[in-house]
């Protein structure tokens, strides 16, 4: 079987690309760092890959709002390619800034890429967004996560809990009050919740580091193949990345590694 080909999308200000690449390589994939300009100029084609990852960073400096400019670029210049990529079974993963991009492009929670509801006309297009943390600050800390077992997300199959770091200033999941969480984000689209160490999904700050509604940390589309999350699974693929490995001994792999193994395994079976 040929190797799973993973595209690591680069844009000005991307900065978690190398460790994301390492995570996919260790999970058995072949990785290709591709600048968004190369896709727009058609020097590279999305359809040549099985997985596309939008890594963390501060694309375009997070000017205007976090992830917005890359989101528009993706939607307006590559919208149809992205839609076709997902339809044909491709996987998309957005981590941190990549999650912000997927939400603001209308790719999550469900694709509005080619829908007339997004952008050009007034409508009930946008049900969720990611906004500035309640603390008003960038925060780097480790968070407990639990996985919604009913979610179709292929990245989190077989995972119940994870312990991962977050590092962001605008990771608060927001749903307009007049829409409400239930309509804004169906239960099945929710993948990850911030919890305390006992798995309580209504734990407050700092367990919920940004004030996200419903303690939501990550969501997927209804196919389960498009997944975005604020925490960084690529920063916990080895035991020695755990903040307390010197207390409990280092495991071979970190909690986040399974996310990459799942993705590569799923893509390999296509």
């Amino acid at each position: 079987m040929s190797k799973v080909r993973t595209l690591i999308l680069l844009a000005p200000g991307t900065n978690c690309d190398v460790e994301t690449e390492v995570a996919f390589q260790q999970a058995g994939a072949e990785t290709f760092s591709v600048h968004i300009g190369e896709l727009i100029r058609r020097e590279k084609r999305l359809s040549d890959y099985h997985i596309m990852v939008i890594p963390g960073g501060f694309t375009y400096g997070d000017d205007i709002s976090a992830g917005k400019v890359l989101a528009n670029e993706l939607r307006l210049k590559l919208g149809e390619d992205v839609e076709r990529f997902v339809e044909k079974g491709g996987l998309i993963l957005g981590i941190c800034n990549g999650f912000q991009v997927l939400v603001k492009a209308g790719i999550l929670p469900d694709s509005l890429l080619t829908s007339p509801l997004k952008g050009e006309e007034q409508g009930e297009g946008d049900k969720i967004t990611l906004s500035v943390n309640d603390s008003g600050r960038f925060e780097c800390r480790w968070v407990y996560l639990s996985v919604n077992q009913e979610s179709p997300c292929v990245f989190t199959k077989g995972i119940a809990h994870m312990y991962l770091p977050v590092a962001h200033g605008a990771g608060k999941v927001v749903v307009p009050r007049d829409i409400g969480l239930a309509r804004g984000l169906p239960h099945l689209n929710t993948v990850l919740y911030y919890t305390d160490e006992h798995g309580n999904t209504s734990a407050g700050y700092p367990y919920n580091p940004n004030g996200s509604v419903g303690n939501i940390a990550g969501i997927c589309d209804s196919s389960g193949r498009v997944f975005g999350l604020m925490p960084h699974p690529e920063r916990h693929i080895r035991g020695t990345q755990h903040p307390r490995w010197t207390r409990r001994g280092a495991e071979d792999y970190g909690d986040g590694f399974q996310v990459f193994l799942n993705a590569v395994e799923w893509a390999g079976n296509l």
Partner: protein
Amino acid sequence: MHRIEVRLKHDFPDAGGLGLVRDIHDLGITTVSDIRVVDIYWLDADLTSAELELICRSLLADPVTQEYQYDQDSWGGDGYHIVEVAYNAGVADPVEATIMKAVRDLGIEKVRAVRTAKRYLIEGQLDKRQLEVICNRLLVNPIIQHVVEQGAVIFPENPQYRFKLERIDILKSTEGELLKIRQQFGFSDDELRAIIDYFHRRGQDPTDVELETLAQTWSEHCVHKTFKGRIKFGDITVDNLLRSTIMKATEELNKPWCLSVFEDNAGVIDFDGQWALCFKVETHNHPSAVEPYGGAATGIGGVVRDIMGTGLGAKPILNTDVFCFGPPDFPYDRLPRGVLHPRRIFKGVRAGVADYGNRLGIPTLNGAVLFDERYVANPLVFCGTVGLLPRKISQMGQQSSGDLVVLAGGKTGRDGIHGVTFASEQLTEESTAVSYSSVQIGDPIVEKKLIDALLQARDRGLYSRITDCGGGGLSSAVGEMAEDTGVRVYLEKVPLKYAGLSYSEIWISESQERMALAVPPNCVEELLTIFANNDVEATVIGEFTNDRRLQLFYQGNPVCDLNMEFLHHGRPQLTAETVWEKPWHDEPDFAPPQDLTKSLLNVLGAWDVCSKEWVIRQYDHEVQGGSVLKPLVGKNNDGPGDAAIIKPLPDSKKGVIVSNGINPKYGEIDPYWMAASAIDEALRQIIAVGGNLKRVALLDNFCWGNTSRPDMLGALVQAAQACHDMAVVFETPFISGKDSLNNEFQFEGKVISVPHTLLISAIGVMEDVSRAISMDFKQAGDLIYLVGTTSSEMGGSEYFRLNAFIGNTVPEVNPHEAKELMNKLSEATEKGLVKACHDLSEGGLGDAVAEMAFAGGLGAIVHLKSVPLEESIDREDFILFSESNTRFLVEVAPGNGAEFEKMMEGIKLAAIGQVTDAETLEIYGLNGRKVVDTSIHELKDAWQRPIRW
């Protein structure tokens, strides 16, 4: 022209506005209750309302949380104080370029220009003066911003520059005129005389840019003339202080793993035979005093470029930051006029470093924050970066004549003009008012793109040499690069942020995010393509020659022609006299307290000791995925780790350890032992986390008062001598360093100098990161060993400071014994006998055992009578809080005690207590009486409370 306003819908809290409210309270104005911030965008174009709707809905406003309006009366109205702040004409806001691009992405091509502003709607009682204070201190930086008045011109024509060659009359000037020139350019008497001689021989007055070039090249900041000076100390004359102390240690040690020392932008050591590490720490003090955010961002941006400019270019992998500020509780009414409050400086510096460092994707893993009243007007900001580069390109490159000069990165503006001379001068009450022009405007994304493009070009071998444009701009970068060849630069080719710059301003501008490269002509096309693909500018601006002349041209006109020999070697060596006498401070006469619990809580809550979690969390310390030992460790990820460890290569077990040592309080008593203590402290931390001394290199950063005063310089000589003496014995060579002198402030006719401040940064290589240990107690029942001996070395201690004394008995270091102790402890750790280890520093034994206990969520029982003493001490408080060097607390499993003691044979140590699961700390005095008895939660709270902002 269209004006668009965007704000949060009313039911969403404005976190940015609330942060501003807190900052205003920090200014001492407590009547402001709420602030809402409106983003203003002006678009220079004629747009239809459909187009405006599209731009607002799809780009500028978040459809869920924000609302917008365009071409209507501004939001605001009654009940608010309204301030609208925009960038000055000619200042490029990075966001504007992004918006232009994003609007084009929407298919709208006709927008000619974009300007942005912020409109603050401030709620609360304020008088005119208070509003002015808020504007001046928080909302407006006058060099880049202004308050928008009604009817202001938003898109003005940029002023154009018309070439006119300026010459400065020095050959026929009067003494008075010469004095003015000397002051204007910051030359000494000797220097100006040498310059007049040179231009006499040439037979023509210098141009302005020639004198500017000499001023930059000969500034303290660039050549370190004090450290290279001839210094008389009693009967002894030292020719070049640096060479005869710090660099001499490196030469004597002659370690084969030192690859490049004291010549490049950073020092370089071997990592694993294939890769090398480089390390540099810079200071950015004066700009941070007047504009903390911008100044500090510039500091981190600059040191990162030093790393990119080392060898043929390194990848930055770790940042470390050390700050010295005035106490956060400093009373407003004692604040000197024109000085920002320490809290404001602290917050601004932190934000600047974090915003810049986080955006670059470099983990900030290590640091320290110290406080003293003498830093109130002159804060110190040390920014350090470690880089990783292939060993085979670790040497500084060398260009050939005919290679092209390429300027890469950001455009050039009027930023930081005269920053170098500013950095080398004394601050005055007027500094805050007049020196904004020395603060530079940063754009970290340009720097990130620059890193990305440079690493690609480096790996294809497309350039022969690289250096950063830092202090002194092109003048320093290109002038230094071309020392051995010569160069011709065509200044009109330099890409500008805005029109109106003179040739001289272009040459000395300190605009950020720029690197200078020497590129062989056959590589230039490929190199420029790489930069274009990464969306970052690169321009050929000249060529290297073989005539050893610095020739500058502007639109075909020669504007500068200096001989490289004179520029780089014509400066007369500085000579200075020094004295140093050990000062005498009152010896304390307070009685030892019966109960030391309160003293311990006070020590833990002291500004220098208390938790800095508030700062640390706002830095990304996980990016790049390499961290093995983080700045916060322990059961709840909130204990104070000793040194940071990263594993930079995914397929290697090898680690990099970074630590720092600094204690200005000891300098009050004896700068020699202060320096020795700082080195001991930096090395202790490396040992504490499981490292060893086999491959450790040091950096020195001196921040001193005015060294033209003999006693100030005498103290500097003492400290430099200690650096030599310690490094030679520990076998830890210095590989790079930096000094910032003249850190003093004129206030009401008095001169206030910063305390003698020496930061020692250490970098070590660790064979296997899985041997790392953290400082938190791991298990009840384990033994607690105190390794090393305690003396009543209370001088400069935190305990004395809290009792308002300095004292005279400063901690000393016996480097021979210290080295033996550290080596044995490393071996014991390597063998797996050490479960936790913490070095003893500020607050001594009491502080260390408390931190280990609450970080581990466990209690401890400790007996002071078991503490190994150098000589008899009858005061329990002295035993508990002595800051004697080279001491460690070590947790050992009871079954391993005998083996640990055997391995440590020859070293004074004792089991002084035990880890318990009682969650209390109990310390028993010399006669068995309990002197400390408190819960670890109370201890932790005392430690966390001061900076829980």
